[in-house]
Each structure stands twice: as C-alpha cells, then as structure tokens.
C-alpha cells in the first residue's frame, strides 16, 4: 500500500489479537470517545429523543454508503448518487402533483434510482469507460434534469401517508428510517461477507484480470453493483423527500462527498480490494455523532464540512504517516 516491502510472518497472531488491532475496533473506540465527550460537553446530548433525531443525520447517507462500499471495493466509484436523489425526488414530486398514491410514488423513486444506476453501469461496463468521468458527467446530467423541470420552484403537496418513511416511528423513539438502516446493514453484511457474490467483489477489486480468468463475470458483477447503488439512492430519495416534505433541485447537494467519506472512514480501501460493512456502519455512527455533537455546540454546517474534509484526508493520511515513521525508525 505504501511501497514498503511486506514480509510473510512465520505465524499469524491469534484471531482475538487481530480483531483487537483492526480498523473497526479503533473506529468503535473513536465512536465511544465521541459519545462520552458529547455527553460531557452538552447536557442535551443524553436524551432518547435527541439521540433519535441524531440518527437522521446519517441513516439516509449510510444506506447509499453500503452499496458504495461494495462498488469501491470492486474498484469503481459512483459520484452521481446525490444527483440520483435529486432526479428521483423530482420524479416523485411531479407524480405527486398528478395525485399519485403512496405506492406509486415509492415505485417511481425506486424505478428512477434503478434506471440511473443502469445508465451508469451500462456506460462503465458496456463501453469500458472510467467510472469517475462517467459519474461526474451523470452527476451534472441527473441534477441538470431536475433543474430543467423545477428551475427555482419546488414540489410540495405529497400525500399524507407519504410522510411515514422519513418521519414515522416504528416503536417509541425507533424511527422507520433507523429500522430500515439496520435491516439494510444486515442484508449488505450477508451479501458482502457471506455469499459468493461478495467474494467475487473482493476478487475483482484485488485483481480484475485474475477474477475474469477464474470465471467471474466481472462486467456483470460491476453492473449489478451500479444498479444497487442507484437503487439505494432511490430509497434514500424516498426517505429524504418524505422527511423534508418538499423537493428542490438542490436537494442532497454535496452528499456524494459525505457518502464517500463514510465509506473511506469505514476502512474501505479507496483503491479497491478491501473493506467491510461493519466498518461502514460504525463510520456512519461516528459521522452522525460528530455532526450532532457539533450541532448541539452551535457549530455552523459549513464548519462541520471542514471536519468532514479533514476526517476524509486524515483517516487515510495518518496510517500512512505512522507507517512511514515506523519505517524510518526501523
């Protein structure tokens, strides 16, 4: 990873020791530390309803981050996710103006997400184009269509039942979104870590040619991953639109950055080949707790984005600096 020679140890450390030294454990420790710090810094932090509100900071982004993690592990990236949200939300808003019911709205949200994912996937896998450029292009294109439809207007007037996805509670302070987040985390954990499909993703990320020669249909797996990322953006669009109750073309602006940050913070190698869903889940909590804690301390949103940017660079830079420092001493 950083150019220093690797040696193969004579014997591996015990599984317990490895788990203790893992990225996920470190991240969990950070999450606990932030939790404790926030509890001490603000008297309003340790309140069931406040904490429940805080989960909305990350649930929608985390849903996309699960699919994005798999995409990045496979060596691709999708920067158009926030624009897919905008387009899906605009389509749902347009349908709501025509008095569409809740099931239709949900289908439209999911359908637009899938269609956008398929478009990205077809360009990347079908024509062999680099995913960064393709999705920078579709990032402008998808949001651009929202701007054409909406201009400086907004869609409102969603049907009453539609608000449940973003504002409903399943039980006491446990929101529908949080339950959905937990279920999706479980599903993605199983897909990535317990199925052949998941193994194929790691294989592709580590060595696409090798994966191809071992019989993995690389293009098809990548296409499915783009579809999944689009679908998750569609689901996030439903939740976010329902929560806000209105659609503007600038909805979810800049989310692609936060989603990628969440994935990288979760220990996924940005160059592909390694990463885990539990890591992304903990990273989601860390980012949610940081933004919520800073919010309680009246730190403005744009200053929080400095923290997010530093977090993104810091989590990659610090281990490398540490490795360089150790190599210097050895």
């Amino acid at each position: 990873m950083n150019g220093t020679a690797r040696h193969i140890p004579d014997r591996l450390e015990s599984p317990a020791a490895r788990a203790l030294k893992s990225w996920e454990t470190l991240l969990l420790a950070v999450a606990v530390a932030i939790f404790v710090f926030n509890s001490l810094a603000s008297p309003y932090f340790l309140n069931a309803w406040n904490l429940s509100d805080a989960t909305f900071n990350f649930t929608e982004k985390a849903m996309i981050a699960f699919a994005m993690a798999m995409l990045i592990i496979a060596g691709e990236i999708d920067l158009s996710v926030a624009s897919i949200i905008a387009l899906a939300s605009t389509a749902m808003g347009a349908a709501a103006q025509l008095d569409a019911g809740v099931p239709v709205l949900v289908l439209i949200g999911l359908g637009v997400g899938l269609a956008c994912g398929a478009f990205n996937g077809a360009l990347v896998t079908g024509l062999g184009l680099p995913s960064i450029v393709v999705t920078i292009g579709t990032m402008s294109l998808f949001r651009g269509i929202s701007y054409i439809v909406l201009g400086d207007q907004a869609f409102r007037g969603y049907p009453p039942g539609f608000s449940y996805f973003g504002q409903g509670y399943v039980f006491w302070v446990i929101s529908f979104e949080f339950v959905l987040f937990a279920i999706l985390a479980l599903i993605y954990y199983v897909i990535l870590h317990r199925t052949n499909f998941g193994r194929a993703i790691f294989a592709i990320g580590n060595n696409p040619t090798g994966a191809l020669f071992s019989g993995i249909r690389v293009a098809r797996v990548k296409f499915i991953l783009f579809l999944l990322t689009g679908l998750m953006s569609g689901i996030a669009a439903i939740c976010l639109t329902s929560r806000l109750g209105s659609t503007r073309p600038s909805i979810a602006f800049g989310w692609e950055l936060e989603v990628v940050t969440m994935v990288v913070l979760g220990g996924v190698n940005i160059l592909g080949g390694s990463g885990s869903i539990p890591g992304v889940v903990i990273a989601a909590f860390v980012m949610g707790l940081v933004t919520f804690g800073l919010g309680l301390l009246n730190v403005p949103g744009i200053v929080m984005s400095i923290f997010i940017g530093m977090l993104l660079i810091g989590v990659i830079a610090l281990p490398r600096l540490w490795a360089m420092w150790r190599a210097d001493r050895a």
Partner: protein
Amino acid sequence: MSTFLKSREALLVLVIGLLLAAIASRFPAFVEPANLARVFNDTAPLMILAIGQTLVILTRCIDLSVAANLALTGMVCAMLNVAAPDLPVAVILLVAVTLGALMGAFNGILVWKLSIPPIVVTLGTMTIYRGIIFLISGGAWVNAHEMTAAFTGFPRAELFGLPALSWIALAIAALFFVVARATPLGRAFYAVGGNPHAAVYTGLNVGRTQFAAFVISGTLSGLVGYLWVARYSVAYVDIAAGFELEVVAACVIGGIAIAGGAGTLMGALLGALFLGIIKNALPVIGISPFWQLAISGSAIVIAVVLGARAARAKGRIILKRAEAQA
C-alpha cells in the same frame, strides 16, 4: 494534416462553427465581433482553469478543489482590499498567486508524499478550503462599494479593444503551449501520465511531476480567484460553487484522456469555448439557464463515449490494461 482533420480539436472547431452558424441564422447579433469578444472574455476564467486542470489530468490525477481555491483566494484578496485600500493591485496579484500555489502545493504534497488518491485529496480539500472562507469571513459578503476602483478595474482595463482578463487568458495559454511542447517539465507531464513505470526508468520523478501539476493548477486558480472577485465585484462563501465540474467538463470535451498522458491544451481551450458559447447563447435563444447543467453533463458523457471509441479505433494501446479486458 489528415491526422489533424480526424482529431478531437478539428471536430470541436467544426462543432463550434456549426453551433455559431446555427445561432447566427436566427440571432445574427450574437456573432458580431464585439459580442464574440464578450463571450471570449466571459469564458476566460474557465479557459485558464482548464489549462491547469489539463496538466493535472495528464499526470493521471484530478483536481476538484480548483473552485474552492478560487473562492478562498478571491475572498482573501477582497478582504485585503477592504483592510488596506492603498495596497497596489500588483501586490494583490502576488498574494493571489502565492496563496493559490500554496493550496495547490498542499494537494500535491498529499498526493506525492503520502500517495493518497488525488480524487480523495481534492474532494477533501475542496470542502476544507470552502469552509475556511466561512471561518475568515464569518459568512459575510464583501460588496462592490467596499472595494476600491483600482481593485475592481484591473480585469476590465482595456488594451487594444480587449479587456485585461482576455489578455491574461491568452498570455497564459501561450505560455503553457510552450511549456507543454518545448520544456522538459511539459514533456514529463505526458510521460508520467502515459506510462508511469517507463517514466521512472527514464529518470522522471512521477510524484514530483504530479506535485508540479497541482502547484500550477493551484496558482492559476488563485490568479482567477482575484480576477473573478474583481470582475463581479463581490465575494462570498459560495462563489463559483460547482465550477470545478465545468472545468473538468471542458477538459473531457476537449479530449483530455482521464487515464492520463493524452490530450492537448488546444483541445481543453476549445472545450471551454464550447461550454462558454452555449452558456452565453442560452439566454439569447430564449432557453432557461437552468438547462446549462444538464447540457454540460450530456456533453461530458458524449465526449467520453466518443473518446473511448476513438482510442479503440486508433489502436494506440499496445498492451491492454487489465480493466479494459474486464
């Protein structure tokens, strides 16, 4: 000659010509020299940034922080002008260029010394630089009446009928044409991006060349930062928000290969002009400016599709890369 006719540059000249002819058939005033000069001047910031971005992309990197760099430098220049109205424009230009270069160097160091992927570095610094504007300005605007006449007048000062902004863009284009074609550094950008391993064996330092590209991109962003704020006579946190995508779009449309090593500055400039003409023509032909984002998005997608087909047809690739087979 026949290779030129088949090149992306020739295609772009043709497309721009057709575009202008189509607009002129309905709105002849658009193609009057005075208006074309206005369009050129309006596109000058995009062209300057596209030059820097081209060099960065040639070395297999990408710089998404250019717009944030521009905005931060612009805000610093504006605040400097308010705090010290007597400061000559030359000093402000120097500050802008130095500050921009420093921000570019920060990106470059992270890419060079820590080998962090450039997209991660510049996504991160993009938000950091943008956030710093809020920290130093407190979210307040610097308005036209607070700036001095000398400060806002510089980019508009006319010389031989063209504003200084246009002349600066032309001078930078000329400078970097020479740099890219006739200096060791310019050739290194192509060599490093074309084949990094071979570049190492030729004695080139890949990381340092990428660093140099980031410094140039940052310097040009800083310069544009001052020019932008002075031209529009306003500075606030969100100026040029999303402009980095337009810059990348200009490069991709201009045929700069995102995989590095291929593409010309002329292509990037024509790509920028293409976007600039569309942007200026939309209100003239009565289409809502809200169409612009979707148009530049489609242009990027179409350009990469064309670029991929051209690369395949040319047979330039001797050894296929792993991803290409997959």
